[in-house]
């Protein structure tokens, strides 16, 4: 299986340098959604890497779908963490602030 990266052209360039072939340059929101849907339907993709700022831009329903997806596993990096941060999630679920 492979890794897929979706983001602006600057974001994906480095990943291409690391050898990742499935990089998609999405410059606007419509393209972003289109590529994400494409990757979700691709059986060969194991991990989907997104930029955090892009993650915040996509529609809520798709975001929930991404967050709950195991195949492919979705991870957002860089910038501010969108939505509920891990810390808040832990606070809400366990009731105690265990992060740090």
């Amino acid at each position, binding site marked *: *299986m*492979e*890794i897929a990266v979706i983001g602006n052209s*600057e974001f994906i*360039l*480095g*990943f*291409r*340098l*690391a*050898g*990742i*072939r499935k990089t998609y340059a999405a410059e606007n929101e419509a393209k972003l959604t289109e590529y994400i849907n494409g990757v979700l339907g691709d059986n060969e993709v*194991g*991990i989907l*890497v997104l930029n955090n700022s892009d993650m915040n831009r996509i529609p809520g329903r798709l975001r929930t779908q991404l*967050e*709950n997806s*195991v*195949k*492919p*596993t*979705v*991870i957002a*990096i*860089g910038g501010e963490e969108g939505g509920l941060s*891990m810390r808040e*999630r*832990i606070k*809400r*679920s*366990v009731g105690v602030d*265990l*992060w*740090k």
Partner: protein
Amino acid sequence: MALRDVKPTRSELIGLKRRIALSERGYKILKMKRDGLILEFFKVLADAKDSRGELLQKYQRAVESMALANTVEGAIGVKSAAFSVKEVPQITLTSKNIMGVVVPKIESSKVRKSLVDRGYGILGTTSIIDETATSFEELVEAIIESAEIETTMKRLLSEIESTKRRVNALEFKVIPELSEARDFIKMRLDEMEREELFRLKKIKARMKA
């Protein structure tokens, strides 16, 4: 269940008792599940903290070296190097089940490559490109590692939350309401029995007189 909807009959009482027993059993099992999930969560927590920090650090380093490479080589130079890389990092993704929560398990192979394997000409590019490629390879490794851990964390957390909700709903809402209804029916049945007895006594006394 509002009390006025409860019919004070014996069959209703039996049904209610059955439902209470079932709810209590479910409550116990769910409570155990919640505790188990929290234990699993603690196991992942330490790893997650480390991996997130590492990922952030590596990302920053990668972005920095990318910017440097862009300045030295120019955007075209970096792009041409990037598009000639041929080796694709391969991963194997399987899923694992932790108490009904499906979490990914990822193994990777050959993310890091030697200079020769990268595909772009060594003579035509500067060492900055190599450094950038190395830092991005490291970043990809970190991503693969934390993708597994983070998704596991997220799924465990949401499962813990919903289980906790269920446990609390059973403990503070469902079981108390059912017990209240049961007590009401019991009281009502007893009351009806006493009325009946009193009526019989009254009739008996009237017949004697």
